[in-house]
């Protein structure tokens, strides 16, 4: 659990990003929203660059562009001018405002400033954009805290306060029962799969946030003011009336849990699962969906017809059952190539947990799990998903950077490195392959189309991993076998 190098105070090649970046990604997943940073110009521009380099999509992040005077006297005036200008130009339905280290340090009170702004500049009617704010000082959390914080802020500030009573019955009849799905930071490809899965279970879902289109859009003939897609605001408003919430993230801190808030404030049943990555984590997710469909309060309305069930033991819809079967079959076909292989896995904590789980299932031993995050929950989560399959639990390091990871990896001599593209220099140094997953992928095309989740995602990752190992063996072989 502890940092391998506890005496070091400097950070070299961080394994985390700054907090507002996560908030920006979450806000980008809301329909009609423009992300806005209350801070100086540099932060917004750097984050745009960073995000663009992964998604190859435009992402406009507005900024208060604070200058020296504002830093001394407060950024209120610039905030208001910025919001006015963004509203005039983008005509957004919502502006997602995240603070930065600078405005947190000078102590700008967003709540108060936005109250003033509303009084001074907004008409108080439909034409006003909604203003959602989140506090994201990077000196107290990484991009994942920023991401979850923004999701929670959206829910806290948008879900109708009085909806619990008023209009509950009528609304339910109109819209049908809905599940809230809070997936965390996953790829557009993952989100598209999650939608398919929900549809197969005949569940309507509000997925928040949804970057599946906003950060993986089509070629256009006009530059969109705001890209198509994202979670509809009216759907967010209704989240307090959902049947249940499913939130991915075994390490997600409770105070940042949107599902937790919906449970405590609106009595929406909360199901916290790990990212459905690998066979068994996906099983758990789909079992829950089956439960919600067949035995839950939705049963009457949305029970799967018997013919759609494969057998009595499996409550999976046919496509999922087939995908699961193929995955298992493939894992059998490939198990020998991976036997005894060792991996170092790094990145966001919940992604690491899912990857360790998948790797354990296919016989790869993770020797080191590393993250720049520090939830304090990583070791326990890793144990939970993989202990029964692994002869020995991996070392787990939270709050570490690539200096720490490299130092350990040199001793552990793994066969594979698995994580985002910032591990490339280490993979190169160690002379081992890097399997690219998660965010960011800055040295390959199509990071947003990497599928991680579900049986399909596990299948793709498995194929990639096993073929990487086989290719390495083939290239290194003096014979050069042309068969496996």
């Amino acid at each position, binding site marked *: 659990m502890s940092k391998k190098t506890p005496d*070091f*105070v*400097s*950070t*070299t*090649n*961080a394994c*985390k*990003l*700054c*907090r507002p*970046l996560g908030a920006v990604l979450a806000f980008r997943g809301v329909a009609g929203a423009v992300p806005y940073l209350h801070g*100086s*110009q*540099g*932060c*917004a*521009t*750097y*984050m*745009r*660059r*960073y995000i*663009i380099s992964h998604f*190859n*999509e*435009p*992402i*406009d992040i*507005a*900024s*208060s*562009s604070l*200058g020296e005077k504002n*830093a001394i006297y407060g950024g209120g005036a*610039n*905030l208001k*001018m*910025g*919001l*006015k*200008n*963004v509203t005039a*130009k983008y005509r957004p339905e919502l502006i997602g405002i995240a603070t*930065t*280290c*600078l405005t947190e*340090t000078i102590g700008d009170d967003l709540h108060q400033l936005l109250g003033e702004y509303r009084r001074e500049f907004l008409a108080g009617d439909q034409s006003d954009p909604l203003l959602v704010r989140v506090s994201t*000082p*990077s*000196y*107290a959390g*990484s991009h994942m805290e920023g991401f979850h914080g923004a999701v929670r802020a959206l829910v806290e500030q948008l879900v109708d306060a009085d909806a619990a009573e008023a209009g509950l019955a009528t609304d339910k009849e109109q819209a049908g029962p809905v599940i809230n799905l809070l997936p965390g930071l996953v790829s557009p490809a993952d989100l598209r799969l999650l939608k398919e899965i929900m549809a197969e279970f005949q569940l309507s879902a509000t997925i928040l946030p949804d970057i599946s289109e906003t950060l993986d859009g089509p*070629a*256009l*003939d*006009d*530059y969109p*003011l705001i890209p198509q897609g994202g979670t509809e605001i009216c759907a967010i408003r209704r989240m307090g009336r959902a049947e249940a919430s499913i939130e991915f993230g075994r390490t997600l801190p409770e105070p940042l849990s949107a599902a937790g808030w919906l449970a405590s404030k609106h009595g929406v049943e909360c199901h916290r699962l790990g990212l459905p990555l690998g066979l068994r984590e996906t099983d758990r997710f789909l079992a829950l969906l089956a439960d919600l469909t067949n035995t839950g309060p939705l049963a009457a309305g949305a029970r799967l017809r018997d013919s759609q069930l494969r057998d009595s033991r499996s409550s999976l819809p046919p496509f999922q059952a087939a995908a699961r079967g193929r995955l298992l079959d493939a894992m059998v076909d490939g198990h020998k190539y991976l036997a005894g292989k060792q991996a170092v896995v790094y990145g966001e904590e919940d992604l690491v947990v899912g990857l360790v789980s998948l790797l354990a299932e296919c016989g790869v031993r993770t020797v080191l799990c590393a993250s720049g995050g520090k939830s304090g929950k990583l070791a326990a989560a890793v144990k939970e998903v993989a202990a029964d399959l692994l002869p020995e639990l991996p070392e787990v390091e939270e709050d570490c950077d690539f200096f720490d990871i490299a130092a350990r990896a040199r001793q552990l001599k793994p066969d594979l490195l698995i994580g985002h593209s910032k591990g490339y*220099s280490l993979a190169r140094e160690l002379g081992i392959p890097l399997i690219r997953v998660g965010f960011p992928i800055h040295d390959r095309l199509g990071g947003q189309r990497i599928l991680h989740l579900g049986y399909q995602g596990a299948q793709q990752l498995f194929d990639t991993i096993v073929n990487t190992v086989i290719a390495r063996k083939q290239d290194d072989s003096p014979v050069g076998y042309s068969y496996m």
Partner: protein
Amino acid sequence: MEATALEARQKQIWCKDDNPMVMDCDKDSLAGAVSQRACVFCGSRVVLYPIADALHLVHGPIGCAVYTWDIRGALSSGPELHRLSFSTDMQERDVIFGGEKKLYRALVELIDRHAPAAAFVYSTCIVGIIGDDLEAVCRQVSAEKGIPVLPVQSEGFKGNKRAGYQAACLAMRRLVGTGDTAGISPYSINILGDFNLAGELWLIRDYFARMGVEVVANITGDGRVADIQRAHGAALNVVQCSGATMDLATMMKEDFGIPVIKVSYFGIEDMAAALYAVADFFKQEPAIMARTKELVREELATLLPELEQYRRDLQGKKAAIYVGGAFKAFSLVKAFRTIGMEVVMVGSQTGTAEDYQELADITDPGTIIVDDSNPLELASFLRDKKVDLFVGGVKERPIAYKLGVAFCDHNHERKEILAGFAGMLNFAREVHASVMSPIWRLLPRRAA
């Protein structure tokens, strides 16, 4: 155009016509306008980053350091310390109680670990607010470790990138003049303002070597601390790019009386002019000019016929330019002429009034000139002017691609040499590769 530009920005956009140019620039970015600009820190980091044997420690929260980790293609022929991202990763307690102790410990630790020739310590926004005394910490560590430890006053909010260039130059000024200048040739120069992207500096150095001119210090491409320390021994400062290192050249003129010439290495005309200007400066040694003429002749003899094939295809295509500093835009306008293309829009993040006047002088009527633009404006220019190719950096790329416009990366991330004579050919090749792709004909913009 009016529809997409905010009223407060109208004065920073000008369309060349018969009237004299009136244009605002050098203003703080408009709040909420999604400027393409970065910050003071970014400017300092760009300039100092290529000094490969120095430690570059970013004092601040993690983001400022992490976004500048190995993102520029500034190559080194030796040490590669500059490719690592060092940060103090300030936490809440540092913000509350001050970050000086942490900075001190981080510096000592990193200097012990890497034994750098010098250390640069960058100040970021919140450091400026909480008031850490960088100067004092740097002085103490410098005394203890016996290497120069230089504070860079680059708080992000204290202006734009240009202020960052100046902060970087002020830090380097402390190095210049501290080294031994024995043995430096009277025909010697410093190369300022080339960052050795993709190895460009090596190409330029080769030209000067062929001319018989000694290069004392590269500032800062493939830079070394010891070279900068003896840079005052050079006879001439050859400065590329209007903003980045001009301040240092001016300081060196004040401090050591070293004359300055401004050059550009992009495009045939400017590249040749740069070499001739240096040769002319050393006219007491006529052999240099003779060798320079020979060099240019040789290079052009191979280059021009090769360029011709690209020019045939590209003739009459329209280009738009949006770059950080305006000086690069001048060269690009000329380079596009060389390959037969027409520039219909040109802008920069941080140009000055003189820069824009010069752009107005060298461009054709109807050309849009813009200062500190943003995605919506740029997209509307691309569309209205029916642009075939956009030149810019990473942030401009998705704007072009989304609209189905070809793109050429002319920023710090590029991996192709675009400077020098060989660079002109690469430039033509890259422009050609993108403009002539069949993909554009399949996209909505053309299909419509």
